[in-house]
């Protein structure tokens, strides 16, 4: 039974790989565009089917099974293996990844309908590669395969952010994403190597057995887990390495939904959940994880409140929710973080795809150019609101229970500071998400706030009028290939919410020993905070009872700091421009004038000596004869006296 699960998971993993190879190698087929896209979708559907079957075969309680092959043989045993490790977590994650990948690929057919055929083929090639590498990461039985797939998803992220590579911002965002996550990846690699020195194996199962039997020395483990956390920090956009994720929104919106909301950015959370038994040995690192997670959540939530770009709001909300998951892991209940990862994957993909439908219709990301869309795009609006309610943590919707669990875990662990931060975040999340809903779907552009934010807004306002003049024809619900994924995700997040609110009051993947008793006031207060956020947004942006400008004025310094992204990007730029480049200039000076100077002196001496020496080569035969004669004389004298 369980080997069936492993085999099915392997099949699921290999299908996108085959699709990628077909599209990647057979270039004429790739350039046909639409047929290539449908091939990729077909394989993704197959992978999803296999993943569902694998998940059913594995079940919640099934023993973890492995299907591994030796990869790097050394001294009788394998230094590294390659294969799949199947257990409840990995199969559930596999289903999420394949589901979102399938829906996003289907959605992209409609979203990218204006792209030329070659670009479309290229897009689907990258999509297939991404699906394969993400699944490889999820299923990987050891750290080495995990790291390789980790880098592969990073590469796919780079390629897909830079899909419109002719746009300079997209190209720059792609490079920024690549380098920022790479900074964390270096930490991950160092952590993996150090861990190998400590444990002597890369294998997750073996290592877990070592930890459980106490065979793994704890001394020095904090450094290792912190290094691994650095990798997760880069991938899962934790402060201060979160700067790449908002910029990554330059890519096509379906890519943002798949990679930068539902799957890839959660890889860090998944990694920490996967190795939670290792992190449990180092509570000091877990404390750092919790604090940074909560702080990231708050920072990103504040930033999301001042964004005018609908995708950037969603991007910051992703960062914020990743902070939530990290806080849960830091509180020691990684299952809650993983659960939130799953529900978040569904409703955030829904939100992004809904935003994509809006952008597709309006032709702009700017919230001030939207408004009153609920009448023109009723289905999109409905689904977007479902996603928003899920994100806000309202009962009966997807994110409700997972958010409660995280808050409960953080409280039960005695982390009062992070708990307060997270409650604040819950309020802000509801506020900024409903700000988007009201601005985009109900009320028109807010004239007061437009006037208050200064001269550039006037340009925006006039641009909005232009778009109203000739942009109406596009503003309707998207075609079926785009609506189907939206409905699937919307119903799914509703179903998940209803199931967990009414029927099961526990985690699906929770372990009995970690079960926590949340205080009774937790649920009402968390929901109350969220409702307060919604109410504030409604009063401000729908009823206009509270003036948005005066609300902004109340938070003047914070608002201006948030508009400057808390200067984090500036700090990075400063670090690069002044510290790094200054150091490089110093090194360059030393190289040019000290190292090169020494070499120049030596080479000048050699040249002079050579010049002098070549004077004895007169070219006149007589001088050579003279030299031969004198040499012979000296030889004779030497033989006569020295050797005798």
């Amino acid at each position, binding site marked *: 039974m369980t080997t069936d699960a492993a085999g099915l998971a392997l099949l699921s993993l290999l299908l996108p790989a085959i699709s990628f190879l077909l599209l990647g190698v057979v270039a004429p087929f790739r350039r046909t565009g639409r047929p290539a896209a449908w091939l990729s979708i077909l394989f993704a559907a197959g992978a999803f089917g296999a993943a569902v079957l694998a998940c059913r075969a594995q079940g919640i309680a099934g023993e973890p099974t492995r299907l591994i092959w030796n990869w790097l043989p050394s001294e009788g045993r394998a230094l590294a293996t390659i294969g799949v490790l199947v257990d409840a977590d990995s199969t559930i994650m596999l289903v999420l990844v394949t589901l979102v990948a399938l829906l996003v690929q289907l959605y992209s057919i409609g979203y990218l309908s204006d792209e030329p055929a070659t670009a479309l083929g290229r897009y689907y090639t990258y999509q297939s590669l991404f699906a394969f590498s993400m699944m490889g990461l999820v299923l990987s039985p050891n750290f080495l395969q995990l790291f390789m797939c980790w880098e592969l998803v990073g590469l796919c992220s780079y390629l897909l952010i830079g899909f419109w590579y002719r746009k300079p911002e997209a190209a720059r965002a792609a490079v920024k994403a690549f380098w920022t996550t790479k900074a964390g990846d270096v930490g991950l690699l160092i952590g993996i190597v150090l861990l190998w020195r400590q444990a002597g194996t890369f294998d997750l199962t073996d290592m877990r057995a070592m930890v459980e039997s106490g065979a793994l020395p704890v001394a020095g483990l904090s450094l290792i887990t912190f290094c691994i956390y650095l990798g997760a920090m880069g991938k899962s956009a934790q402060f201060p390495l979160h700067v790449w994720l908002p910029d990554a929104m330059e890519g096509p919106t379906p890519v943002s939904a798949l990679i930068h909301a539902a799957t890839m950015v959660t890889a860090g959370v998944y990694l920490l959940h996967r190795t939670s038994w290792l992190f449990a040995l180092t509570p000091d690192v877990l404390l750092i994880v919790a604090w940074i997670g909560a702080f990231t959540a708050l920072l990103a939530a504040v930033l999301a409140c001042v964004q005018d770009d609908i995708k950037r709001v969603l991007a910051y909300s992703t960062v914020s929710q990743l902070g939530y998951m990290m806080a849960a892991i830091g509180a020691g209940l990684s299952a809650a973080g993983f659960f939130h990862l799953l529900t978040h994957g569904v409703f955030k993909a829904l939100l992004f795809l809904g935003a994509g439908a809006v952008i597709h219709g309006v032709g702009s990301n700017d919230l001030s150019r939207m408004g009153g869309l609920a009448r023109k795009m009723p289905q999109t609006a409905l689904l977007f609101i479902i996603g928003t309610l899920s994100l806000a943590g309202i009962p009966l919707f997807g994110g409700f229970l997972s958010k409660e669990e995280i808050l409960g875990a953080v409280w039960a662990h005695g982390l009062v500071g992070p708990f307060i931060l997270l409650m604040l975040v819950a309020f802000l999340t509801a506020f900024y998400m409903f700000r988007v809903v009201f601005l985009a779907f109900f009320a028109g552009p807010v004239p007061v706030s437009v006037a208050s934010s200064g001269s550039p807004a006037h340009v925006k306002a006039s641009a909005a009028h232009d778009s109203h003049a000739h942009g109406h024809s596009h503003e309707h619900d998207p075609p079926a290939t785009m609506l189907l994924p939206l409905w699937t995700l919307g119903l799914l997040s509703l179903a998940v919410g209803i199931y967990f609110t009414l029927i099961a009051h526990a985690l699906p993947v929770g372990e009995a020993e970690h079960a926590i008793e949340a205080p009774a006031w937790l649920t009402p207060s968390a929901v109350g905070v969220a409702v307060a956020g919604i109410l504030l947004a409604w009063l401000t942006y729908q009823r206009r009872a509270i003036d948005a400008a005066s609300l902004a004025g109340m938070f003047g310094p914070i608002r201006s700091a948030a508009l400057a992204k808390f200067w984090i990007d500036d700090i990075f730029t400063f670090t690069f421009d002044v510290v790094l480049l200054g150091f490089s200039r110093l090194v360059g000076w030393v190289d040019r004038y000290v190292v090169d100077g020494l070499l120049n002196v030596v080479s000048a001496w050699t040249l002079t000596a050579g010049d002098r020496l070549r004077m004895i*080569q*007169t*070219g006149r035969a*007589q001088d050579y*004869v003279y030299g031969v004669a004198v040499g012979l004389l000296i030889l004779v004298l030497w033989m006569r006296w020295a050797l005798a």
Partner: protein
Amino acid sequence: MGLAHYLTLAATLFCIGLFGVVTRRNTIGILLGIELMMNAVNINLVAFARFSGSVPGMVFTVFTICVTVAEAALGLAIVILLFRVRRTVSADHLDLLKG
């Protein structure tokens, strides 16, 4: 008159020839110096042949003289050709070997 006398004469002649080769500026003078050195060698050969009573040494001297004649003819031919090409026979101007 012992062997040493002959050898001293030959060595003196050789040194005179060598001096001529090294110091003369005229290429023909250098050739003459070479001839002198050759003859110093011949004197050595004859002297050794006489004192050791070996006939082949004498024969070899005759052979050497023949070769010397051929060499002189060749050397003079080179000098003539050199004069035709360079319009000079001064050794100072023949420095094509210069590195």
